[in-house]
Protein backbone atom coordinates (compact mmCIF):
# COMPACT_ATOMS: atom_id res chain seq x y z
CA UNK A 1 0.00 0.00 0.00
CA UNK A 2 2.77 2.44 1.00
CA UNK A 3 4.84 1.81 -2.13
CA UNK A 4 2.11 3.21 -4.39
CA UNK A 5 2.67 6.61 -2.75
CA UNK A 6 5.99 6.94 -4.55
CA UNK A 7 4.05 7.91 -7.68
CA UNK A 8 3.16 11.59 -7.88
CA UNK A 9 -0.22 10.82 -9.44
CA UNK A 10 -1.06 8.61 -6.45
CA UNK A 11 -0.03 11.30 -3.95
CA UNK A 12 -2.10 13.85 -5.87
CA UNK A 13 -5.02 11.45 -5.93
CA UNK A 14 -4.88 11.03 -2.15
CA UNK A 15 -4.59 14.76 -1.54
CA UNK A 16 -7.48 15.40 -3.93
CA UNK A 17 -9.60 12.78 -2.15
CA UNK A 18 -8.97 14.38 1.23
CA UNK A 19 -9.62 17.92 -0.04
CA UNK A 20 -12.84 16.89 -1.77
CA UNK A 21 -13.96 15.14 1.42
CA UNK A 22 -13.83 18.35 3.42
CA UNK A 23 -16.21 20.31 1.18
CA UNK A 24 -18.33 17.29 0.43
CA UNK A 25 -18.78 16.39 4.11
CA UNK A 26 -19.78 19.93 5.13
CA UNK A 27 -22.06 20.82 2.22
CA UNK A 28 -23.47 17.29 1.94
CA UNK A 29 -24.98 17.71 5.40
CA UNK A 30 -27.03 20.68 4.18
CA UNK A 31 -28.03 18.80 1.04
CA UNK A 32 -29.37 15.95 3.18
CA UNK A 33 -31.04 17.82 6.06
CA UNK A 34 -32.59 20.48 3.82
CA UNK A 35 -33.73 17.72 1.44
CA UNK A 36 -32.34 19.37 -1.67
CA UNK A 37 -30.79 16.25 -3.17
CA UNK A 38 -32.68 16.71 -6.43
CA UNK A 39 -31.64 20.32 -7.03
CA UNK A 40 -28.05 19.36 -6.13
CA UNK A 41 -28.19 16.55 -8.70
CA UNK A 42 -29.49 19.09 -11.19
CA UNK A 43 -26.60 21.48 -10.50
CA UNK A 44 -24.07 18.63 -10.79
CA UNK A 45 -25.38 17.38 -14.13
CA UNK A 46 -25.88 20.86 -15.57
CA UNK A 47 -22.20 21.48 -14.72
CA UNK A 48 -21.37 19.29 -17.72
CA UNK A 49 -22.25 22.34 -19.80
CA UNK A 50 -19.29 24.07 -18.15
CA UNK A 51 -16.95 21.24 -19.11
CA UNK A 52 -18.09 21.61 -22.73
CA UNK A 53 -17.58 25.35 -22.47
CA UNK A 54 -14.03 24.77 -21.23
CA UNK A 55 -13.24 22.55 -24.23
CA UNK A 56 -14.84 25.06 -26.58
CA UNK A 57 -12.79 27.96 -25.20
CA UNK A 58 -9.67 25.83 -25.02
CA UNK A 59 -9.15 26.35 -21.24
CA UNK A 60 -9.00 23.89 -18.33
CA UNK A 61 -12.56 22.46 -18.30
CA UNK A 62 -12.70 22.77 -14.49
CA UNK A 63 -12.39 26.55 -14.95
CA UNK A 64 -15.39 26.46 -17.29
CA UNK A 65 -17.39 24.57 -14.68
CA UNK A 66 -17.11 27.23 -11.95
CA UNK A 67 -19.10 30.00 -13.68
CA UNK A 68 -21.40 27.53 -15.42
CA UNK A 69 -22.42 25.59 -12.32
CA UNK A 70 -22.94 28.79 -10.33
CA UNK A 71 -25.16 30.12 -13.14
CA UNK A 72 -27.06 26.81 -13.14
CA UNK A 73 -27.46 26.94 -9.34
CA UNK A 74 -28.73 30.52 -9.38
CA UNK A 75 -31.15 29.98 -12.25
CA UNK A 76 -32.57 26.80 -10.70
CA UNK A 77 -32.96 28.59 -7.38
CA UNK A 78 -34.58 31.69 -8.83
CA UNK A 79 -36.89 29.81 -11.21
CA UNK A 80 -38.08 27.41 -8.51
CA UNK A 81 -38.66 30.19 -5.94
CA UNK A 82 -40.15 32.95 -8.04
CA UNK A 83 -42.12 31.34 -10.84
CA UNK A 84 -45.22 29.20 -10.75
CA UNK A 85 -43.40 26.30 -12.42
CA UNK A 86 -43.25 23.42 -9.91
CA UNK A 87 -39.74 23.22 -8.42
CA UNK A 88 -38.97 19.67 -9.58
CA UNK A 89 -40.12 20.45 -13.13
CA UNK A 90 -37.90 23.55 -13.28
CA UNK A 91 -34.91 21.57 -12.00
CA UNK A 92 -35.53 18.74 -14.47
CA UNK A 93 -35.59 21.14 -17.42
CA UNK A 94 -32.43 23.06 -16.46
CA UNK A 95 -30.68 19.77 -15.60
CA UNK A 96 -30.98 18.42 -19.15
CA UNK A 97 -30.42 21.79 -20.82
CA UNK A 98 -27.06 22.11 -19.07
CA UNK A 99 -26.00 18.65 -20.24
CA UNK A 100 -27.24 19.27 -23.78
CA UNK A 101 -25.30 22.53 -23.96
CA UNK A 102 -22.21 20.61 -22.90
CA UNK A 103 -22.65 18.14 -25.74
CA UNK A 104 -23.11 20.98 -28.26
CA UNK A 105 -20.03 22.83 -26.99
CA UNK A 106 -17.92 19.66 -27.25
CA UNK A 107 -19.21 19.05 -30.81
CA UNK A 108 -18.31 22.63 -31.77
CA UNK A 109 -14.81 22.33 -30.29
CA UNK A 110 -12.01 21.68 -32.76
CA UNK A 111 -10.43 18.24 -32.57
CA UNK A 112 -11.11 15.35 -30.27
CA UNK A 113 -12.09 15.60 -26.56
CA UNK A 114 -9.90 12.92 -25.02
CA UNK A 115 -10.67 13.19 -21.30
CA UNK A 116 -14.42 13.57 -21.63
CA UNK A 117 -15.16 10.21 -20.03
CA UNK A 118 -13.06 11.23 -17.02
CA UNK A 119 -15.19 14.32 -16.40
CA UNK A 120 -18.36 12.25 -16.61
CA UNK A 121 -17.30 9.38 -14.32
CA UNK A 122 -14.24 10.67 -12.49
CA UNK A 123 -10.50 10.41 -13.07
CA UNK A 124 -8.90 10.87 -9.68
CA UNK A 125 -5.60 9.42 -10.95
CA UNK A 126 -5.09 12.30 -13.37
CA UNK A 127 -5.42 15.26 -10.99
CA UNK A 128 -2.70 17.81 -11.87
CA UNK A 129 -1.06 19.91 -9.15
CA UNK A 130 -2.79 23.04 -10.51
CA UNK A 131 -6.14 21.45 -9.68
CA UNK A 132 -4.96 20.71 -6.15
CA UNK A 133 -4.33 24.43 -5.68
CA UNK A 134 -7.77 25.24 -7.07
CA UNK A 135 -9.34 22.68 -4.71
CA UNK A 136 -7.53 24.23 -1.74
CA UNK A 137 -8.88 27.69 -2.50
CA UNK A 138 -12.44 26.43 -3.11
CA UNK A 139 -12.31 24.62 0.23
CA UNK A 140 -11.11 27.77 1.96
CA UNK A 141 -13.99 29.77 0.45
CA UNK A 142 -16.59 27.15 1.40
CA UNK A 143 -15.31 26.81 4.97
CA UNK A 144 -15.19 30.59 5.44
CA UNK A 145 -18.79 31.07 4.29
CA UNK A 146 -20.16 28.16 6.33
CA UNK A 147 -18.20 29.22 9.40
CA UNK A 148 -19.68 32.71 9.35
CA UNK A 149 -23.25 31.81 8.32
CA UNK A 150 -23.87 28.33 9.76
CA UNK A 151 -26.54 29.59 12.19
CA UNK A 152 -28.47 31.19 9.34
CA UNK A 153 -28.07 28.10 7.14
CA UNK A 154 -29.33 25.91 9.98
CA UNK A 155 -32.40 28.13 10.38
CA UNK A 156 -33.34 28.07 6.70
CA UNK A 157 -32.79 24.30 6.60
CA UNK A 158 -34.99 23.73 9.64
CA UNK A 159 -37.92 25.93 8.60
CA UNK A 160 -37.49 28.39 5.77
CA UNK A 161 -40.83 30.13 6.26
CA UNK A 162 -40.19 30.68 9.95
CA UNK A 163 -36.73 32.02 9.11
CA UNK A 164 -38.44 34.61 6.88
CA UNK A 165 -40.76 35.69 9.67
CA UNK A 166 -37.83 36.51 11.96
CA UNK A 167 -36.39 38.78 9.29
CA UNK A 168 -33.69 36.64 7.67
CA UNK A 169 -33.01 37.21 3.93
CA UNK A 170 -33.95 33.58 3.27
CA UNK A 171 -33.96 33.69 -0.52
CA UNK A 172 -30.46 35.16 -0.70
CA UNK A 173 -29.20 32.65 1.89
CA UNK A 174 -30.73 29.79 -0.09
CA UNK A 175 -29.12 30.99 -3.32
CA UNK A 176 -25.79 31.31 -1.53
CA UNK A 177 -26.14 27.74 -0.27
CA UNK A 178 -26.85 26.57 -3.84
CA UNK A 179 -23.67 28.37 -4.98
CA UNK A 180 -21.69 26.52 -2.30
CA UNK A 181 -23.17 23.28 -3.66
CA UNK A 182 -22.05 24.35 -7.14
CA UNK A 183 -18.48 24.93 -5.87
CA UNK A 184 -18.51 21.56 -4.12
CA UNK A 185 -19.56 19.96 -7.40
CA UNK A 186 -16.48 21.55 -9.01
CA UNK A 187 -14.32 19.97 -6.30
CA UNK A 188 -15.89 16.56 -6.74
CA UNK A 189 -15.85 16.38 -10.55
CA UNK A 190 -12.24 15.12 -10.62
CA UNK A 191 -13.03 12.47 -8.01
CA UNK A 192 -16.24 10.86 -9.27
CA UNK A 193 -17.37 12.90 -12.31
CA UNK A 194 -20.57 14.90 -12.86
CA UNK A 195 -22.77 11.81 -13.18
CA UNK A 196 -21.72 10.35 -9.83
CA UNK A 197 -21.22 13.55 -7.79
CA UNK A 198 -24.57 13.25 -6.04
CA UNK A 199 -23.42 10.01 -4.40
CA UNK A 200 -20.72 11.78 -2.40
CA UNK A 201 -23.01 14.72 -1.62
CA UNK A 202 -25.61 12.45 -0.02
CA UNK A 203 -24.24 9.11 1.19
CA UNK A 204 -21.65 10.25 3.80
CA UNK A 205 -24.03 12.87 5.25
CA UNK A 206 -27.01 10.51 5.29
CA UNK A 207 -24.92 7.85 7.01
CA UNK A 208 -23.52 10.26 9.62
CA UNK A 209 -27.09 11.19 10.49
CA UNK A 210 -27.62 7.67 11.79
CA UNK A 211 -25.08 8.31 14.55
CA UNK A 212 -25.60 11.88 15.74
CA UNK A 213 -28.24 14.53 16.23
CA UNK A 214 -25.94 17.54 16.06
CA UNK A 215 -25.32 19.35 12.80
CA UNK A 216 -21.66 20.10 13.60
CA UNK A 217 -20.91 16.49 14.63
CA UNK A 218 -22.67 15.35 11.46
CA UNK A 219 -20.29 17.51 9.43
CA UNK A 220 -17.12 16.14 11.07
CA UNK A 221 -18.34 12.56 10.80
CA UNK A 222 -19.38 12.95 7.19
CA UNK A 223 -16.01 14.50 6.23
CA UNK A 224 -14.37 11.47 7.83
CA UNK A 225 -16.68 8.98 6.09
CA UNK A 226 -16.23 10.72 2.77
CA UNK A 227 -12.44 10.42 3.12
CA UNK A 228 -12.70 6.74 4.07
CA UNK A 229 -14.98 5.99 1.12
CA UNK A 230 -12.87 7.82 -1.48
CA UNK A 231 -9.57 6.37 -0.26
CA UNK A 232 -11.10 2.91 0.18
CA UNK A 233 -12.62 3.04 -3.31
CA UNK A 234 -9.34 4.31 -4.73
CA UNK A 235 -7.44 1.42 -3.14
CA UNK A 236 -9.95 -1.17 -4.43
CA UNK A 237 -9.81 0.31 -7.91
CA UNK A 238 -6.01 0.04 -7.78
CA UNK A 239 -6.12 -3.52 -6.44
CA UNK A 240 -8.64 -4.79 -9.00
CA UNK A 241 -7.76 -2.40 -11.82
CA UNK A 242 -11.32 -1.07 -12.08
CA UNK A 243 -12.61 2.52 -12.63
CA UNK A 244 -12.00 4.59 -9.47
CA UNK A 245 -15.08 6.85 -9.56
CA UNK A 246 -17.47 3.91 -9.79
CA UNK A 247 -15.59 1.99 -7.07
CA UNK A 248 -15.80 4.99 -4.70
CA UNK A 249 -19.56 5.21 -5.27
CA UNK A 250 -20.05 1.47 -4.76
CA UNK A 251 -18.00 1.48 -1.56
CA UNK A 252 -20.08 4.41 -0.21
CA UNK A 253 -23.40 2.86 -1.19
CA UNK A 254 -22.50 -0.54 0.27
CA UNK A 255 -21.35 1.04 3.54
CA UNK A 256 -24.61 2.98 3.74
CA UNK A 257 -26.72 -0.13 3.19
CA UNK A 258 -24.74 -2.12 5.78
CA UNK A 259 -24.96 0.71 8.30
CA UNK A 260 -28.71 1.16 7.76
CA UNK A 261 -29.40 -2.56 8.09
CA UNK A 262 -27.28 -2.95 11.23
CA UNK A 263 -28.64 0.14 13.02
CA UNK A 264 -32.15 -0.97 11.99
CA UNK A 265 -31.52 -4.47 13.38
CA UNK A 266 -30.16 -2.97 16.57
CA UNK A 267 -33.24 -0.74 17.02
CA UNK A 268 -35.44 -3.76 16.33
CA UNK A 269 -33.66 -5.94 18.89
CA UNK A 270 -34.17 -3.39 21.61
CA UNK A 271 -37.93 -3.87 21.28
CA UNK A 272 -37.75 -7.64 21.63
Amino acid at each position, binding site marked *: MIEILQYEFMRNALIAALLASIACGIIGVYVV*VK*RIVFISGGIAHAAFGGIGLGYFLGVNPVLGVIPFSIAAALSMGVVSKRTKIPEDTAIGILWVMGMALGVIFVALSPGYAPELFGYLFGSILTVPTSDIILMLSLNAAIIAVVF*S*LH*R*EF*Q*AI*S*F*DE*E*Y*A*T*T*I*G*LPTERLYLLLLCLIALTVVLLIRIVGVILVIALLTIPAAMS*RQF*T*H*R*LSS*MMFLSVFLCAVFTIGGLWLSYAFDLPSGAMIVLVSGTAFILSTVSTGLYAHRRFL
Partner: protein
Amino acid sequence: MQHGSTRTIVKLEDVWVHFDGVSVLEEVNLSINQHDFLGIIGPNGGGKTTLLKVILGLLKPSRGKVTVLGHTAEEGRKFVGYVPQYSLFDHEFPVSVWGVVLMGRLGHKKPFRDYSEADKKLAHDSLETVEMLDFKDAQIGKLSGGQQQRVFIARALVAEPKLLLLDEPMASVDSPMQTELYELFEKLRQRMAIVLVSHDISAVSIYVDKIACLNRRLFYHNSKEITAEDLEATYQCPVEIIAHGVPHRVLKEHK
Protein backbone atom coordinates in the same frame (compact mmCIF):
# COMPACT_ATOMS: atom_id res chain seq x y z
CA MET B 1 -44.74 55.75 24.32
CA GLN B 2 -48.40 56.09 25.14
CA HIS B 3 -48.54 55.01 28.76
CA GLY B 4 -51.94 54.28 30.16
CA SER B 5 -53.79 54.42 26.87
CA THR B 6 -54.25 51.28 24.79
CA ARG B 7 -51.77 51.03 21.98
CA THR B 8 -52.76 49.50 18.65
CA ILE B 9 -50.31 46.76 17.69
CA VAL B 10 -51.76 45.62 14.37
CA LYS B 11 -54.24 47.31 12.08
CA LEU B 12 -55.78 45.71 9.01
CA GLU B 13 -57.88 47.97 6.79
CA ASP B 14 -60.08 46.55 4.04
CA VAL B 15 -57.72 43.63 3.40
CA TRP B 16 -58.48 41.30 0.48
CA VAL B 17 -56.42 38.28 -0.55
CA HIS B 18 -56.89 36.36 -3.79
CA PHE B 19 -55.24 33.11 -4.88
CA ASP B 20 -55.54 32.57 -8.64
CA GLY B 21 -58.60 34.78 -8.81
CA VAL B 22 -60.37 33.08 -5.89
CA SER B 23 -60.83 35.25 -2.83
CA VAL B 24 -59.54 33.83 0.46
CA LEU B 25 -60.00 36.96 2.57
CA GLU B 26 -62.62 39.61 1.88
CA GLU B 27 -62.88 43.07 3.36
CA VAL B 28 -61.09 42.22 6.60
CA ASN B 29 -60.86 45.03 9.14
CA LEU B 30 -59.14 44.28 12.42
CA SER B 31 -57.39 46.14 15.19
CA ILE B 32 -55.32 44.24 17.73
CA ASN B 33 -54.48 46.21 20.83
CA GLN B 34 -51.89 45.87 23.53
CA HIS B 35 -52.91 43.20 26.07
CA ASP B 36 -55.58 41.71 23.77
CA PHE B 37 -55.96 37.95 23.92
CA LEU B 38 -57.90 37.32 20.73
CA GLY B 39 -59.18 33.94 19.62
CA ILE B 40 -59.98 33.62 15.91
CA ILE B 41 -62.17 30.64 15.05
CA GLY B 42 -63.35 29.41 11.69
CA PRO B 43 -63.55 26.30 9.54
CA ASN B 44 -60.53 24.75 7.83
CA GLY B 45 -59.77 26.67 4.66
CA GLY B 46 -61.52 29.73 6.09
CA GLY B 47 -58.39 31.87 5.73
CA LYS B 48 -57.02 31.75 9.29
CA THR B 49 -53.43 30.88 8.38
CA THR B 50 -53.67 33.30 5.43
CA LEU B 51 -54.64 36.07 7.85
CA LEU B 52 -51.60 35.31 10.03
CA LYS B 53 -49.34 35.28 6.96
CA VAL B 54 -50.70 38.68 5.92
CA ILE B 55 -49.88 40.09 9.37
CA LEU B 56 -46.37 38.58 9.09
CA GLY B 57 -45.87 40.07 5.63
CA LEU B 58 -45.40 36.61 4.08
CA LEU B 59 -48.36 37.28 1.81
CA LYS B 60 -49.12 40.58 0.15
CA PRO B 61 -52.82 41.45 0.18
CA SER B 62 -54.32 42.16 -3.24
CA ARG B 63 -56.06 45.14 -1.70
CA GLY B 64 -56.00 46.97 1.62
CA LYS B 65 -53.41 48.01 4.18
CA VAL B 66 -51.60 46.26 7.03
CA THR B 67 -49.65 48.15 9.67
CA VAL B 68 -47.69 46.69 12.57
CA LEU B 69 -46.88 49.36 15.17
CA GLY B 70 -46.96 51.97 12.42
CA HIS B 71 -44.62 49.99 10.13
CA THR B 72 -45.33 47.87 7.07
CA ALA B 73 -45.92 44.19 7.83
CA GLU B 74 -42.42 43.27 6.63
CA GLU B 75 -40.68 45.87 8.78
CA GLY B 76 -42.98 45.05 11.68
CA ARG B 77 -41.85 41.41 11.80
CA LYS B 78 -39.32 42.16 14.49
CA PHE B 79 -42.19 42.96 16.85
CA VAL B 80 -44.11 39.78 16.07
CA GLY B 81 -43.50 36.30 17.48
CA TYR B 82 -44.91 33.47 15.38
CA VAL B 83 -45.66 29.91 16.43
CA PRO B 84 -46.45 28.01 13.22
CA GLN B 85 -48.77 25.04 12.91
CA TYR B 86 -47.42 21.88 14.47
CA SER B 87 -45.87 19.19 12.24
CA LEU B 88 -44.59 21.62 9.64
CA PHE B 89 -40.99 20.66 10.41
CA ASP B 90 -38.80 17.61 9.89
CA HIS B 91 -38.90 15.71 13.19
CA GLU B 92 -35.57 14.04 12.46
CA PHE B 93 -33.81 17.37 12.00
CA PRO B 94 -30.51 17.36 13.90
CA VAL B 95 -31.00 20.28 16.27
CA SER B 96 -31.38 20.56 20.05
CA VAL B 97 -34.09 22.48 21.94
CA TRP B 98 -31.43 25.07 22.80
CA GLY B 99 -30.51 25.47 19.12
CA VAL B 100 -34.15 25.91 18.12
CA VAL B 101 -34.77 28.61 20.73
CA LEU B 102 -31.62 30.55 19.81
CA MET B 103 -32.83 30.64 16.18
CA GLY B 104 -35.46 33.12 17.37
CA ARG B 105 -32.63 35.63 17.95
CA LEU B 106 -31.25 35.40 14.40
CA GLY B 107 -33.26 38.36 13.17
CA HIS B 108 -31.87 40.51 16.00
CA LYS B 109 -28.22 39.48 16.17
CA LYS B 110 -25.55 40.94 13.91
CA PRO B 111 -24.89 38.80 10.84
CA PHE B 112 -21.63 36.75 10.77
CA ARG B 113 -21.40 36.96 14.57
CA ASP B 114 -21.97 34.36 17.24
CA TYR B 115 -24.93 34.70 19.60
CA SER B 116 -24.13 37.24 22.33
CA GLU B 117 -24.39 36.59 26.07
CA ALA B 118 -27.60 38.66 26.01
CA ASP B 119 -29.05 36.37 23.32
CA LYS B 120 -28.20 33.32 25.42
CA LYS B 121 -29.70 34.90 28.52
CA LEU B 122 -32.96 35.56 26.64
CA ALA B 123 -33.02 31.96 25.39
CA HIS B 124 -32.43 30.71 28.93
CA ASP B 125 -35.20 32.90 30.36
CA SER B 126 -37.66 31.98 27.60
CA LEU B 127 -37.10 28.28 28.21
CA GLU B 128 -37.63 28.93 31.90
CA THR B 129 -40.91 30.77 31.17
CA VAL B 130 -42.28 27.81 29.21
CA GLU B 131 -40.81 25.38 31.79
CA MET B 132 -38.66 23.52 29.26
CA LEU B 133 -35.18 24.42 30.55
CA ASP B 134 -34.54 20.84 31.70
CA PHE B 135 -34.92 19.66 28.11
CA LYS B 136 -32.51 22.12 26.53
CA ASP B 137 -30.10 19.47 25.23
CA ALA B 138 -32.80 17.14 23.86
CA GLN B 139 -33.23 16.72 20.13
CA ILE B 140 -36.41 18.57 19.16
CA GLY B 141 -38.08 15.58 17.46
CA LYS B 142 -37.79 13.45 20.62
CA LEU B 143 -40.25 15.64 22.57
CA SER B 144 -44.02 15.19 22.80
CA GLY B 145 -46.34 17.44 20.81
CA GLY B 146 -47.09 19.66 23.80
CA GLN B 147 -43.42 19.99 24.73
CA GLN B 148 -42.50 20.91 21.15
CA GLN B 149 -45.23 23.53 21.16
CA ARG B 150 -43.69 25.03 24.32
CA VAL B 151 -40.26 25.13 22.69
CA PHE B 152 -41.67 26.91 19.65
CA ILE B 153 -43.37 29.41 21.95
CA ALA B 154 -40.00 29.98 23.67
CA ARG B 155 -38.42 30.50 20.22
CA ALA B 156 -41.00 33.22 19.55
CA LEU B 157 -40.47 34.79 23.01
CA VAL B 158 -36.69 35.27 22.67
CA ALA B 159 -37.28 38.06 20.17
CA GLU B 160 -39.26 39.92 22.88
CA PRO B 161 -42.32 40.38 20.65
CA LYS B 162 -45.17 42.80 21.20
CA LEU B 163 -47.55 40.35 19.54
CA LEU B 164 -47.63 36.56 19.65
CA LEU B 165 -49.35 34.73 16.78
CA LEU B 166 -50.31 31.11 17.49
CA ASP B 167 -51.53 28.93 14.63
CA GLU B 168 -53.61 26.00 15.96
CA PRO B 169 -51.50 25.70 19.12
CA MET B 170 -53.78 23.04 20.63
CA ALA B 171 -53.51 20.57 17.76
CA SER B 172 -51.50 17.52 18.86
CA VAL B 173 -51.62 18.62 22.51
CA ASP B 174 -53.56 16.48 25.02
CA SER B 175 -56.14 18.14 27.28
CA PRO B 176 -54.20 18.44 30.57
CA MET B 177 -51.38 20.04 28.58
CA GLN B 178 -53.90 22.36 26.88
CA THR B 179 -54.91 23.81 30.24
CA GLU B 180 -51.24 24.33 31.11
CA LEU B 181 -50.68 26.08 27.79
CA TYR B 182 -53.62 28.41 28.44
CA GLU B 183 -52.18 29.22 31.86
CA LEU B 184 -48.89 30.03 30.13
CA PHE B 185 -50.69 32.37 27.68
CA GLU B 186 -52.48 34.00 30.61
CA LYS B 187 -49.05 34.74 32.10
CA LEU B 188 -47.65 36.01 28.78
CA ARG B 189 -50.45 38.45 28.06
CA GLN B 190 -49.07 40.82 30.69
CA ARG B 191 -46.17 41.34 28.28
CA MET B 192 -47.74 41.13 24.82
CA ALA B 193 -50.90 40.86 22.76
CA ILE B 194 -51.79 37.29 21.80
CA VAL B 195 -53.73 36.04 18.78
CA LEU B 196 -54.72 32.37 18.78
CA VAL B 197 -56.20 30.77 15.71
CA SER B 198 -58.19 27.53 15.76
CA HIS B 199 -60.72 25.56 13.72
CA ASP B 200 -61.92 23.93 16.92
CA ILE B 201 -64.41 26.18 18.63
CA SER B 202 -64.10 24.33 21.93
CA ALA B 203 -60.33 24.75 21.92
CA VAL B 204 -60.74 28.50 22.26
CA SER B 205 -61.43 28.46 25.94
CA ILE B 206 -62.57 30.86 28.61
CA TYR B 207 -59.06 32.30 28.74
CA VAL B 208 -59.33 34.38 25.58
CA ASP B 209 -61.00 37.70 26.15
CA LYS B 210 -62.04 38.50 22.60
CA ILE B 211 -63.37 36.28 19.85
CA ALA B 212 -63.61 36.73 16.09
CA CYS B 213 -65.10 34.37 13.50
CA LEU B 214 -63.36 34.01 10.15
CA ASN B 215 -64.58 32.41 6.98
CA ARG B 216 -63.29 34.65 4.18
CA ARG B 217 -65.02 37.51 6.03
CA LEU B 218 -64.18 38.43 9.60
CA PHE B 219 -66.93 38.86 12.17
CA TYR B 220 -65.59 40.77 15.14
CA HIS B 221 -67.07 43.16 17.66
CA ASN B 222 -63.91 43.82 19.69
CA SER B 223 -65.38 41.72 22.50
CA LYS B 224 -65.97 38.17 23.62
CA GLU B 225 -69.47 38.21 22.17
CA ILE B 226 -70.32 36.45 18.97
CA THR B 227 -73.82 36.30 17.63
CA ALA B 228 -75.64 33.24 16.40
CA GLU B 229 -75.74 34.90 12.96
CA ASP B 230 -71.96 35.36 12.97
CA LEU B 231 -71.41 31.72 13.80
CA GLU B 232 -73.91 30.60 11.20
CA ALA B 233 -72.29 32.78 8.58
CA THR B 234 -68.86 31.47 9.54
CA TYR B 235 -69.59 27.78 9.69
CA GLN B 236 -72.55 27.78 7.31
CA CYS B 237 -74.50 25.23 9.32
CA PRO B 238 -76.96 25.36 12.25
CA VAL B 239 -75.40 26.98 15.28
CA GLU B 240 -76.76 24.54 17.86
CA ILE B 241 -74.36 21.86 16.65
CA ILE B 242 -71.40 24.20 16.65
CA ALA B 243 -72.22 25.97 19.92
CA HIS B 244 -72.47 22.70 21.76
CA GLY B 245 -69.66 22.51 24.27
CA VAL B 246 -68.86 26.20 24.07
CA PRO B 247 -68.67 27.75 27.54
CA HIS B 248 -71.62 30.01 28.24
CA ARG B 249 -69.32 32.90 28.90
CA VAL B 250 -68.34 32.88 25.26
CA LEU B 251 -71.83 33.03 23.85
CA LYS B 252 -73.42 35.98 25.51
CA GLU B 253 -76.80 37.31 24.44
CA HIS B 254 -75.96 39.82 21.72
CA LYS B 255 -78.05 42.98 21.75
